[in-house]
């Protein structure tokens, strides 16, 4: 019974919550927040059902159902998940309630609209990850811009937010219009935009190269890969905490997902051809952005640049085109989705209290905020790939995978772990250790209960992925093997 309607309900539930929110008067902001949170929690529970009923033994798309069809064209849009998209859906539904809970007190204007924006974002993101049609993937991929632009622009923290939302918008738009043309070209060549059909089509070599580049223009901006990463630190540091969380946690993954779902299976020859390009850009991303991290004074920018470095690992892993590499990059995306989100939440915690993210105002927080410091330490360790945490397993898998295909790149990429340790420890050292500095900040308050509950699922998941990654890897194993078979 659930099989047939679970994905549509996943999309529909947040939309239903949105409509409900329209009818709650502004005099009752608490009820608005509660409705938003409970809708997203229900969606999360429903998505767990997706995982429970997921059949791990088949690479086929599951829970497939018709979304809608467009007249006068061969477009019948289906929703469905396989091992690749399953966890992205789960990550989305997990992070949205965390976002709403994390910004419970810090959002003071347009509270209803805030919840509506996040619920809309959730519905669109679920569509992005489950839609089995290239054109509609594009449509939802772009539709994400609308709520995100408003979230950064309206609820962002400083004056620079305008510039940040501009950059975010324009960068993404420039890349993705080229993808739109590529999709229209594919449609013109094959008469369909259905992924299930397109993966069986073989494009000729030159066409593949052009199409791959057009897709790359869009996906590389989203990942982001190095020359196109400028929007990311801006957007991250100006967005509200929850905005950064969803940006780092899910939005960056749309790029990686796009590579795995479209670029690699549809244009396998071009993917092999362009592997050196991806490797080079990724290694530059790892080393260059890690070094850039060391010169930042804003904590959010540090984490943003470290995200770029981690996404460099992801793209390396993806284009090794072997099972360890791809599974490693999948796991790294999930792990990064949890860990860097949690780091942004940590920064959000102290930003809520003291309204600054500049490192030099903080020192010796361990003395007054022990609970916060231990949480922060945990995620800092997770960020640098400490054994026992999720990043260790995934970065290890990525390096194993890339060792098989290119030793030189592996060596360079492996230095990234050292850089990561460098800036992570450096950041934590400045903020948490040292003498307590009361010249700027005089009153301290440790994590309260709400914030504690925000961090619990992140800590749990980081441990779980670090100690027992099989439950995640098993579900994606068959799909990824199938993907690699398609390439070969």
């Amino acid at each position, binding site marked *: 019974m659930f099989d047939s309607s679970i994905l549509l309900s996943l999309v529909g539930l947040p939309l239903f919550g949105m409509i409900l929110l329209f009818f709650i008067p502004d005099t009752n902001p608490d009820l608005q927040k509660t409705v938003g949170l409970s809708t997203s929690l229900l969606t999360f529970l429903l998505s767990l059902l997706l995982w429970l009923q997921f059949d791990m033994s088949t690479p086929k798309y599951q829970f497939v159902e018709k979304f*809608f069809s*467009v*007249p*006068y064209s061969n477009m019948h849009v289906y929703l469905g998940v396989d091992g690749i998209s399953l966890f992205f859906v789960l990550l989305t539904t997990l992070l949205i309630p965390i976002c709403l809970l994390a910004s419970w007190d810090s959002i003071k204007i*347009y509270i209803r*609209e805030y919840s509506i924006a996040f619920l809309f974002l959730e519905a669109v993101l679920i569509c992005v990850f489950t839609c089995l049609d290239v054109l509609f993937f*594009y*449509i*939802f991929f*772009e*539709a994400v*811009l*609308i709520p995100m632009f*408003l979230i950064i*622009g*309206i609820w962002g923290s400083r004056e620079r*937010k*305008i510039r940040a*939302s*501009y950059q975010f*918008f*324009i960068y993404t*738009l*420039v890349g993705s*219009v*080229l993808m*739109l*043309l590529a999709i*229209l*070209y594919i*449609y*013109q060549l094959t008469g369909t935009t259905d992924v299930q059909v397109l993966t069986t089509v073989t494009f000729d070599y030159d066409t593949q190269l052009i199409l791959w580049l057009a897709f790359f223009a869009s996906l590389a901006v989203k990942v982001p890969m190095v020359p196109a990463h400028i929007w990311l630190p801006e957007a991250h540091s100006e967005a509200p905490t929850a905005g950064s969380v969803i940006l780092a946690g899910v939005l960056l993954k749309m790029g990686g997902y796009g590579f795995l779902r479209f670029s690699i299976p549809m244009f396998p020859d071009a993917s092999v051809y362009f592997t050196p390009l991806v490797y080079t850009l990724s290694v530059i991303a790892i080393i260059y952005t890690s070094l850039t991290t060391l010169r930042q004074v804003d904590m959010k920018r540090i984490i943003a640049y470290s995200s770029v470095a981690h996404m460099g690992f992801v793209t390396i892993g993806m284009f090794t085109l072997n099972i360890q590499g791809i599974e490693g990059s999948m796991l790294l995306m999930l792990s990064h989705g949890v860990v860097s989100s949690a780091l942004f939440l940590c920064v959000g915690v102290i930003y809520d209290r003291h309204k600054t993210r500049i490192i030099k105002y903080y020192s010796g927080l361990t003395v007054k905020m022990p609970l916060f410091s231990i949480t922060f330490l945990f995620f800092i360790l997770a960020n640098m790939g400490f054994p026992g945490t999720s990043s260790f397993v995934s970065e290890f898998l990525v390096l194993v995978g890339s060792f098989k295909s290119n030793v030189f790149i592996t060596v360079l990429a492996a230095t990234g772990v050292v850089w990561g340790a460098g800036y992570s420890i450096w950041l934590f050292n400045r903020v948490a250790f040292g003498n307590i500095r009361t010249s700027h900040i005089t009153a301290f308050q440790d994590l309260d209960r709400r914030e504690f509950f925000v961090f619990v699922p992140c800590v749990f998941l980081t441990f779980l992925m670090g100690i027992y990654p099989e439950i995640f890897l098993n579900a994606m194993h068959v799909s990824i093997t199938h993907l690699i078979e398609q390439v070969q």
Partner: protein
Amino acid sequence: MDFLTFFGNDFKVVMPELYLFTACLFLLSYGVIFSTSKSLNYPIIQLNVGWLSIFSLGITLSLLISSPVVTMSVFNNLLIVDAFSTFSKILIVSSTLVCCLMSMSYLNNKKVNSFEYFILILLACLGMVCLVSTNDLLALYMSIELMSLSFYVLAAYKRSSEFSGEAGLKYFILGAFSSGLLLFGTSMIYGFTGLTNFEEISKVVTGINGVTDVVTYNGIIIGLLFVAVALLFKIGAAPFHMWAPDVYEGAPTPVTAFFSIVPKIAIMALLLRLFYSTFYDFASLWQPIFLYTGVLSMLIGSIGALYQKKIKRLMAYSGIANVGYMLIGFSAGTVESMSGLIIYLIIYVVMMVAFFSFVLGTQTEKDAKLNMHVSDLSNLGKVNPVLAMSVTFILFSMVGLPPFAGFFGKMYLFLAVMQSELYTVAIIGVLSSVVAAFYYIRIIKVMFFGTSNHYVTYKQMDKLNALVLSSSLFFLIFFFAYPTPFLLCAHKVSLGLLL
């Protein structure tokens, strides 16, 4: 010979036009008689005439909708009535009706107090309705002049404003120039073929028995070039766009709304009829003209709008850019491109209606001023967040962001362009739409994030504009859910014209 038997059933077919014409005359005499009546103390009957003309436009619309769709040429092949012309007429009359609705509050607040505004709008509408069903070069010239002359007067309608007078004069001089080009072009074609009727011309220039004589051939081409240039002038495409920003800025705002919505439909429909059906065999010749004009319009429209501070000038440039998109779709020259063009046209009209109903509907509390500068909107996000959000959605739709309707318009157009293998043009097109995104987003930025040193409050929007804004916004947001009727309509109409 009896008058009625001479014209046969012709009058039955052109019933909507006849009705509109009669309504114009009737309303004119009604206005003249009553507004100069001394015994009634010279009443101000502007809104009265306004409602009556809206009423008569509504009846014209219902006559059009209920007219049996037959292909028939009337008045000795002077006019043709077919599915395409009926469709364009419905679009023209309904958007004119909406423009009248939108201008009611403006005329009321500004105390313009002369009823001729609506008469002129109706006459222009009559001209455009005839224009889309012309089947003869003479009828073309007559109806385009009826339309243009009404436009010149409308542009100069605000007598107290020197801008308006300037706009009217500029429009008149340049419009007369382009009419001259049109007349020259038609006379060339007539001189070399001896024909004025579209069907007969198309028979002469078509197929193996087509024009073999080099002189005749070149003569027709030169005539065609002049006709094309004149029409591009009227629609405001790029190398001939210079009048557009000045006229749009100077004309009273409801007239600007009218200019940027309705004539685009009429002239596009005329271009389609002329070049897709009559001169289709010259496709290799007219294709590059429209292609380059389209590309140039896109670029000039997008880049020119970047530095505009006034909303009306900005919309003028945005109109140029949009005409550019339409023209590159037009130049593809296939059934798909025509149906894509029609869908784009419908969506463009709705977007413009939505945006201008916003511009006409927001007035400052203090001096009832309309928003002239983009920076005047700087408090809107704080004062009226719902309105600001609606405008944001309209602008996102103009950017072409899915899932709003504007995206689908662009998508169908670019799909057609890709199918005709005009890849470079498609790339230039999407990139210029990114440039266009800059200035649309700038309006959003000003509304939500702008800072202003004085706190402007706005009057409540009047009911008519609110109605127009909300219904067009509903269309823009939910177009993606059920586009079938529009696609069906566009497809049938374009098949009807081309096959």
